[in-house]
């Protein structure tokens, strides 16, 4: 026995390891596993991995379905640098996301911490806040179009009751993005539900200890609640940023429907909208592929920066601090 145990401890050589690994394919279980996997595997190769390679290749061509295709080298990527709409839309998208993400997080944190402090009607309120999430994005965009109209929209009318003359939300370049953010944070419900669940999972003894030390309500929130729910905050921070950078439906409905095509302001041009137009309105498929890789790169970089930056702020239970 002792000898057998001793022998097992010796690390097998590379050849033995390889033989064992390939031997895995001879087992019936493995075949079954791959049988179960086969639909996904096929879809992954045909609809994800293959297209990724194809998209990378296309980005070096002037492919347009109709005309003959040429290899253009880096020309598409160089064109991006000089295309004013790329810079404009990128700037719009980044500014809008930078406004939307904190606004959404703060509002849902506010709602969730209030919801956590009541015991009656909690479910009712939660339902109310979640209902806008169920509204189709096209409907949200259309409602924004009508509610935020500078001439006869309800929002400006309501503002006039309290003595503020509302801006032209949809034609004044300075007010387009704030208006969009207000439209977006109407759908704050998903985050609210997430934060509420996170807050309710904070161990009660931490609050009791804080209270015994005479911590005020604000200190309890800042020093107990916030650190304890920081993993959730971090998770939503990343998800919301990715969502914001790829925003399409609502803005396309509001600003790029057939009736607004001539009047659409450049301040509402988001990156994905520009990409979509290049691809499926003008059929510059090569150029659009290059645009897609650029936004992919930007999303990657932003996410990595977020992960690195938040290492300091996120507290994971059980991890050495």
């Amino acid at each position, binding site marked *: 026995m002792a000898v057998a145990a001793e022998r097992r401890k010796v690390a097998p050589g590379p050849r033995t390891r390889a033989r064992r690994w390939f031997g895995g394919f001879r087992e019936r279980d493995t075949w079954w596993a791959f049988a179960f996997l086969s639909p996904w595997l096929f879809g992954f190769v045909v609809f994800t991995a293959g297209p990724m390679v194809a998209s990378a290749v296309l980005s070096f061509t002037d492919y347009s379905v109709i005309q003959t295709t040429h290899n253009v080298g880096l020309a598409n990527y160089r064109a991006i640098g000089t295309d004013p709409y790329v810079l404009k839309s990128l700037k719009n998208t980044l500014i809008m996301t930078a406004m939307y993400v904190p606004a959404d997080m703060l509002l849902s944190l506010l709602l969730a911490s209030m919801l956590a402090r009541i015991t009656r009607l909690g479910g009712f309120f939660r339902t109310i806040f979640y209902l806008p999430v169920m509204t189709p994005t096209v409907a949200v965009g259309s409602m924004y179009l009508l509610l935020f109209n500078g001439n006869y929209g309800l929002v400006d009318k309501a503002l006039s009751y309290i003595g503020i003359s509302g801006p032209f939300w949809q034609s004044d370049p300075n007010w387009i993005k704030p208006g969009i953010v207000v439209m977006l944070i109407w759908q704050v419900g998903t985050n609210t*539900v997430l934060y509420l669940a996170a807050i309710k999972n904070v161990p009660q003894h931490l609050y009791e200890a804080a209270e015994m030390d005479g911590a005020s309500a604000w200190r309890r929130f800042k020093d107990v609640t916030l650190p304890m729910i920081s993993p959730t905050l971090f998770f939503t921070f990343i998800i919301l940023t990715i969502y914001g950078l790829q925003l399409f439906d609502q803005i396309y409905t509001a600003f790029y429907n057939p009736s607004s095509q001539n009047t659409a302001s450049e301040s509402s041009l988001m990156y994905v909208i520009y990409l979509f137009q290049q*691809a499926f309105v003008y059929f510059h498929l090569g150029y659009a592929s290059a645009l897609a890789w650029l936004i992919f790169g930007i999303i990657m970089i932003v996410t990595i920066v977020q992960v690195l930056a938040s290492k300091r702020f996120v507290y994971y239970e059980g991890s050495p601090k």
Partner: protein
Amino acid sequence: MATPDVPPIRGPWYRWQRGIPFAKQLPFVVLLTVFSVLFTYPFLWLLSSSLKPRAYVFTNRLVPERWRFYNYVEIWHAAPFLRWFWNSMYIDVLAALTVTFASALTAFAFAYFRFPLRNFLFGCVLATMMLPSMVTMIPVYLIWHHLGLSNSQYPLWASNLFGSAFYIFLQRQFFLGIPREYFEAARMDGDSYFTMFRRIALPLAKPALIVTFLFEFKAKWTDLMTPLIYLHGDKQFTIPRGLYALLGEFSPSAGGNGDYELIMAALVLSTLPMLILFAFGQRYFIEGITLQGRKG
């Protein structure tokens, strides 16, 4: 299980809070009521405007001065709305059913079997979750184009036959939670792996399957970009694509009559199924979201 007005997770916090007198909660209840009014007002405004005659649509009075229920009759004639409704229904149900089943197969394989390349392939699933759809959008369009289907409804649901990374991840967590002895017992009884999957794994993972179905149904009901790419005749349109077309068709600057009361009626009709879906599946929506957050 949990009734709608009770939070699903009753942590120690909940028990602690329950001891708090109602008077202390009152300020929060009042504040939340104010927020609730703000959040629900757009719905009420929409409903009320959809019941007004054209000239009164933008009076913004909550109770219409004149009622016009006929808007809801007219919208079915003014646009092929019934057709869109049917298109959305059948595409979304197909998409949701196929993605649920295909993702379950894959998720089960990752959860139950041990096989070479497993970690690598699961890494591929996770990587797919991170990949923006725009990167693959154009080549996928070209695939459908070369199959001669880029002008059809197939691209809206057929790729769901192969599962979807996010749901695979979600369901795998669920399958991992099922005690392995259940499966071993089934194997002892001589069940094949597929029978075991069907008779034991699927029924036990029912909540995850329902969450998948509901999430995907909602996502498809809302999706605008894919129909914009693939659907071209208004007989093919889904609800979002149809609404988008209506917005252009009826507005004065595109040669319409400004029939905003009809647009509002259409918006109500497109939102209603989602609200009904939520009314019945609220528990699963909330559960699905918290599941998402738990892994983060």
